[in-house]
């Protein structure tokens, strides 16, 4: 169970990586993808805080619930429902499948934050983290034919900010209001 908070307001990122250094990748990436060793700072007021076991079947109901919350806050831009839902699903499925490796005893924490400038979601798993720089470009010829590995790219395409904390086990997706 995730008992600790993924946040630490006193800690600042100890280092940052970005796919901007990866040549072809940066041309296509709309959002900066950063990796920080430490935890994120709290990005505003929490409006939803849920925790689920690592079961893919539990992701879609949580996404539907989260979308209801975001719509009720009026922060979803017209015509972007499916794009935002996609990003939430990708983030949660990555945490379940790659972070916690479907270990039902491990939990995924999902939070939505709202501030004056942006809304954000924070997804935390109990896995070992990862380095986004090692993720292959899904747009290159061999990548197009792969049957996985598109989630991070899609999140970076549709969100304004994509950041990984705690070595990659906490993901922050943010969108300006």
């Amino acid at each position, binding site marked *: 169970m995730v008992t600790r908070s993924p946040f630490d307001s006193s800690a600042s990122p100890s280092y940052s990586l970005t796919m901007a250094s990866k040549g072809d990748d940066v041309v296509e990436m709309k959002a900066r993808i950063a990796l920080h060793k430490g935890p994120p700072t709290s990005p505003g007021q929490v409006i939803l805080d849920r925790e689920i076991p690592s079961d893919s079947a539990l992701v*879609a109901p949580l996404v539907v619930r989260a*979308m209801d919350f975001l719509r009720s806050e009026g922060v979803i831009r017209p015509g972007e429902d499916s794009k935002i839902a996609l990003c939430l699903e990708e983030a949660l499925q990555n945490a379940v499948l790659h972070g916690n490796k479907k270990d039902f005893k491990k939990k995924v924490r999902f939070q939505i934050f709202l501030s004056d400038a942006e809304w954000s979601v924070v997804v935390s798993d109990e896995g070992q983290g990862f380095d986004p720089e090692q993720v292959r470009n899904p*747009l290159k010829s061999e990548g197009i034919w792969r*049957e996985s590995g*598109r989630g991070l790219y899609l999140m970076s395409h549709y969100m304004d900010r994509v950041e990984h904390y705690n070595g990659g086990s906490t993901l922050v997706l943010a969108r300006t209001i």
Partner: protein
Amino acid sequence: MEPTKDGILLSQVIDGIAVIGFARGRIRDEREILKTLESLGRYIESKTGLELVLDLGNVEYLSSAGLGHLVGLLKKSKSKGSTLKLCSLREPIQELFDVMKLTQIFEIHASVKEATDSFQPVGPNKKNC
């Protein structure tokens, strides 16, 4: 081809071409879609020389997992000498294909008719699925 148990898969044969569609395809249904695509993949692997059209007109939502499954179907089709084409993509799904450059590997048509018409006639005794 038999419909799946949950009835999400719809299929018909038009001029010897198998046209496969979905009854629905929302966020809540994606796991059903994935299972259906896996079932379709097993069918494709069991045959050779198929002509298939996958009608995505009722699919409102696909994640990267769905895209990956579709790529898998295309690879299986090619390995079995079959032809798989897609049609009737809704705007958000078409955008996903554009963003991920999957339009480079999939043949995509605006309608079922356009897709079935795009197959070259092979004579009076076309293959049936």
